[in-house]
């Protein structure tokens, strides 16, 4: 099979399109690269949705944690502690077991004549269940980053907002929020990179790969088991991830530039890459 044929057969295998059977014998380098690249679609999907949704919840959490009222502050603090204090791996296992039990616990209700009980089945699938866990997890980590940024907004900016007569929503939307984002952005870039790396845990932590539709590491692991040679598939995954990390950095760097565009050249903050590890 030529490399082009392999590409057309396996490029979207991770979505269930193309050849059904995975390569078993005489595995070529081309097959490994194509199939692992195909799995990368899932990593991008998980990271993109979790980050997008998590961003909004994180803003809400940061504001809630900064409120004087304990009724609002305490739940936010506990949420952040729960997700930052425990391993993501355990969170995945726990969530999967909980989701599996849900239909058995009998959450089935009819609203406006539509049966909603069937939806809980999808929670046990990686595309929904794992995205929810990653979303809550990144919201907690990002919430803490945003909270730190919220606390370090220069006093002068807030006083200037007061002097202009801005209050409530307007003050938040025009002064507090943009400054918070600007201060938090370098740390948030790192968080995005960790989250992208963390998406590799999904198919190793309870969530089954349905019909062998898995992520990049799932296929790499498959090849390593099939060929008993780890020296080819894992470096391929590593290469893909290094490339994607560079993409994330350039994407977030562009946004960083926009957030800092009103500042004099010397005061603009560069993104310092401080890679962390797993949660």
């Amino acid at each position, binding site marked *: 099979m030529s490399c082009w044929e392999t590409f057309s057969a396996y490029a979207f295998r991770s979505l269930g399109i193309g050849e059904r059977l995975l390569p078993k*014998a005489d*595995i070529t380098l081309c097959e490994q690269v194509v199939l692992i690249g195909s799995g990368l679609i899932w990593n991008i999907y998980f990271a993109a949705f979790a980050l997008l949704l998590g961003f909004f919840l994180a803003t809400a959490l940061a504001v809630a944690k900064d409120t004087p009222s304990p009724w609002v502050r305490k739940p936010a603090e506990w949420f952040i*502690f*729960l997700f930052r*204090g*425990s*391993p*993501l*791996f*355990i*969170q995945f*296992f*726990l969530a999967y*077991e*909980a989701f*599996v*039990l849900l239909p058995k616990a009998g959450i089935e209700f009819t609203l406006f004549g539509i049966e909603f009980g069937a939806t809980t089945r999808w929670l046990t699938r990686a595309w929904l269940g794992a995205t929810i866990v990653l979303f809550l997890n990144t919201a907690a980590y990002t919430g803490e980053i945003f909270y730190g940024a919220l606390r370090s907004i220069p006093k002068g900016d807030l006083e200037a907002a007061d002097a202009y007569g801005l209050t409530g929503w307007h003050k938040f939307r025009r002064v507090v929020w943009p400054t918070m984002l600007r201060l938090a952005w370098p740390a948030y870039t790192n968080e995005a990179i960790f989250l992208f*790396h*963390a998406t*590799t*845990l999904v198919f*190793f932590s309870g969530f089954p790969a349905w019909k062998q539709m898995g992520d990049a*590491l799932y296929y*790499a*692991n498959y090849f*390593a088991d*099939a*060929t*008993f*040679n*780890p*020296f080819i598939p*894992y470096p391929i*995954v*590593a290469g893909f*991830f*290094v490339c994607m*990390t560079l993409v994330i950095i350039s994407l977030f760097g562009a946004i960083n530039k926009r957030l800092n565009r009103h500042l004099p050249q010397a005061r603009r903050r560069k993104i310092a890459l401080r*890679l*962390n*590890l*797993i*949660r």
Partner: protein
Amino acid sequence: MFASCADPSSLEGLAWLACYLTNGKHLLFYGSFGTVLLLLAVTAPVSLAFGFAGAMASRSRFLPLAWAGKIYTSVVRGVPDIVFFLFFVIALDQGIEWLRHQALCPGWTEPVRQGSDFIVCPEAKMPLSTAPQTVHEIYNFSLAVVTFAIVFGAFAANVLYGAMNAVPRAQLETAHAYGMNDRQTFWRILVPQMWVYALPGLGNLWMILIKATPLLFLLGVRDIVYWARELGGSKTAIYAYPHPDWRLYYFLFLLVFYLAFTRVSEIVFERLSRKLSHGQATAAGEAQRRQA
């Protein structure tokens, strides 16, 4: 364990639960918490040593060594750690067997890699196929420790490298002015002072290390995740203690364990940093001085 537990089917309520939670498999489960703590106790100093070596290499004036140090830290940090965990366990295992194969079976002519098989002579197997089960487990565990140390060593190297650079230059110049050579300046001036700068990063790293321990499960070690899955799965009537699927509760227990562990570590690190800041020329040290 207790005499009253001889016939579990006759037990009810709390007595059943007490017997259930103290049966042999559960004792292994509790023991596996020891495995996790042992891993942390062994990995933390070893990866600190790896990190120290990496940071020293990165600072080296001999360029190839400096490059090696920098490549080590940046490659490990740029790739998901779980890739390394899956990779190193097989790679280290095959590497050790290959080296032993070269040393022990010089007369072996067939290639080691035949298609999708990796075949070494029987004497080079690691551990030997005749070895008892505990040797296999210890070997797996050591592979896991080395893998953790390599990955976390890179992170520690990054933290320590930053900390070494954070020590005020005037301190080093003063040491030189007193006639100390490079080696003496490094060990007597730089190393004792760098810890206060490294502590926040190392504390963070410790938290991450704690939260990475469930990955032991992926490395084939019988750790707490393995036992939680094993014990929690639904047991039919052929087992002594039949019960439905309780994995949720077992994982909840693990979650609480990790939350408590990270919280306690956080408090300890707070105290430690207060102690280390004492008398240092930093903002925290200055604040302590003013308070006293």
